[in-house]
């Protein structure tokens, strides 16, 4: 019971703060919309991915993936804030398992990411992008798995850093490469060979691919079977949670 309580209260705390910081929802929604229209709109003139769709449509799952990536990583990185400003100590001396702490943190990042995904999906009709009705729950389900995977990866990253100076290195050397090597902007098959191999060890690649399955359904723009995508997301989530739990142990 205590473990369930701990998971619950860690999620409640993050959601409460998310709701309080009204600017955060707006700014995290602004980024994907800007990308969709500036990058997607601009590139549509230059490239055509074929497959019977415009570039702006093609990158839509990738932009959702980006939203989930940023929002999940940000949520997990808040652990570094908590270390710097002390609350982490209060959590670590509580009689709860380190795994509950990791799961609570990962779920709060997941829920916030799924909320953002849902808001973007709600905006779609106004942006002239059509989505079949069944795609919505399907997309949210995939978003949940991907967000949980990225959030738990974010927790591992956060345990290695003690202060906020490291934030920009995390963005430059982890988050941005993950985004560009994920098939979000271009099909993985079209990447040069070395980058293609790198893309295949990136969990975001499989998340974006699963989002392509969910959004385009019959349209064959994906790189891997759905079964592979979901398998990779689930297995890597479990591995990340275990590693994160152990990396929280005392020194």
């Amino acid at each position: 019971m205590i473990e369930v309580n701990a998971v619950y209260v860690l999620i409640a705390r993050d959601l409460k703060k998310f709701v309080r910081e009204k600017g955060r929802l707006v700014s995290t929604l602004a980024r994907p919309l800007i990308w969709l229209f500036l990058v997607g709109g601009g590139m549509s003139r230059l490239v055509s991915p074929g497959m019977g769709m415009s570039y702006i449509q093609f990158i839509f799952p990738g932009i959702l993936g980006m939203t989930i990536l940023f929002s999940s990583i940000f949520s997990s990185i808040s652990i570094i804030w908590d270390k710097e400003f002390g609350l982490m100590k209060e959590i670590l001396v509580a009689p709860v398992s380190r795994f509950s702490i990791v799961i609570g943190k990962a779920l709060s990042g997941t829920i916030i990411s799924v909320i953002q995904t849902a808001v973007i999906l709600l905006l779609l009709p106004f942006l002239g992008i059509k989505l079949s009705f069944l795609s919505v729950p399907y997309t949210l389900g995939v978003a949940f798995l991907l967000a949980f995977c990225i959030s738990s990866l974010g927790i591992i990253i956060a345990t290695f850093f003690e202060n906020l100076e490291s934030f920009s290195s995390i963005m430059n050397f982890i988050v941005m490469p993950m985004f560009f090597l994920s098939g979000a902007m271009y099909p993985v098959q079209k990447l040069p060979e070395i980058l293609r191999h790198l893309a295949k060890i990136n969990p975001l690649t499989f998340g974006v691919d699963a989002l392509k399955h969910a959004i385009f359904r019959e349209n064959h723009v994906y790189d891997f079977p759905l079964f592979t995508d979901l398998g990779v997301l689930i297995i890597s989530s479990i591995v990340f949670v275990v590693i994160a739990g152990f990396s929280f142990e005392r020194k």
Partner: protein
Amino acid sequence: MPIIKVENLSKTFDALTAVDNVSFEVDEGTIFGFLGPNGAGKTTTINILCTLLSPTSGKASIAGHDCVKEPSEVRKAIGIVFQDTTLDKDLTAYENLMLHAYLYDVKRNEMKSRIDDALYFVGLYERRDDLVKKFSGGMKRRLEVARGIIHRPRVLFLDEPTLGLDPQTRANLWEFIVGLPKKHNVTIFMTTHYMEEAEVCDSIAIIDKGKIIASGTPEELKKTIGGDVIYIRTSDNEKARSEIEKLFGLEVSEKDNELFLTTLKGDACIPEIIKAIGEKVLSVRLQRPTLNDVFLKMTGKQIREINGSSDDTIREAVRAYRRRHS
């Protein structure tokens, strides 16, 4: 009955031995003071006791549970107010305590009443719905003490609870720390580098450079200094001096036109001395030994020389700097 037992505890960071073969016991229901200058190893010892650090060697147990082997049992038995604040500044006072109550599995139907009681106890009930970032240093400290007792711990650790507070707030905080053992049935383990604050402790250990250099009750420790010092000025110091020496068998010295002598129970001696000597007494004062004197005697240094008064200010400045540049 000792509730905290520490045996030959050591902790080494790379080449530095922060805690060096430390042993002590703390009895249940008492206030134990762990005294020493900055960098003596107080916080490191607390971190080991509260299961955040593992010791390099030695043993520690709280309420019969080993701090290394049964961390979960130890965590249930303790509450901690860390040296640096560990509140969530973006939550309200009430929400911070709620977070704590959930993490410690306080029963759902008792949660509200326990939080309210704790808030009343520290005088913050009226401010319960304010964000913690609006609180002063003293209010944050009080809130942390309230948080520390919500789950009814058997031992409450207070690491430098009065650091950086103004004298008035310090005095107030002390008043209710001293009331804690009776009201909340808890043993207090506190550290400080203000020696005068430790007078209220039932027992004390003085630590310097990782080693315990003295321990006992404040009275016992002060006795090692040799007792109180009485200063007397009379109309004829020479005569008075020889009278006191003859009648009481005490050694009397003179400095700056003032006689002084060391004795146990100085307050009781003063009337005797005044009655006994024929000379007119112009002034009398009594100086009791302080724990600072004990520290001075044990180490040959004043604790103030080591601390330097500006360390808090420097720490604050460094934190502010890091915040700005992140």
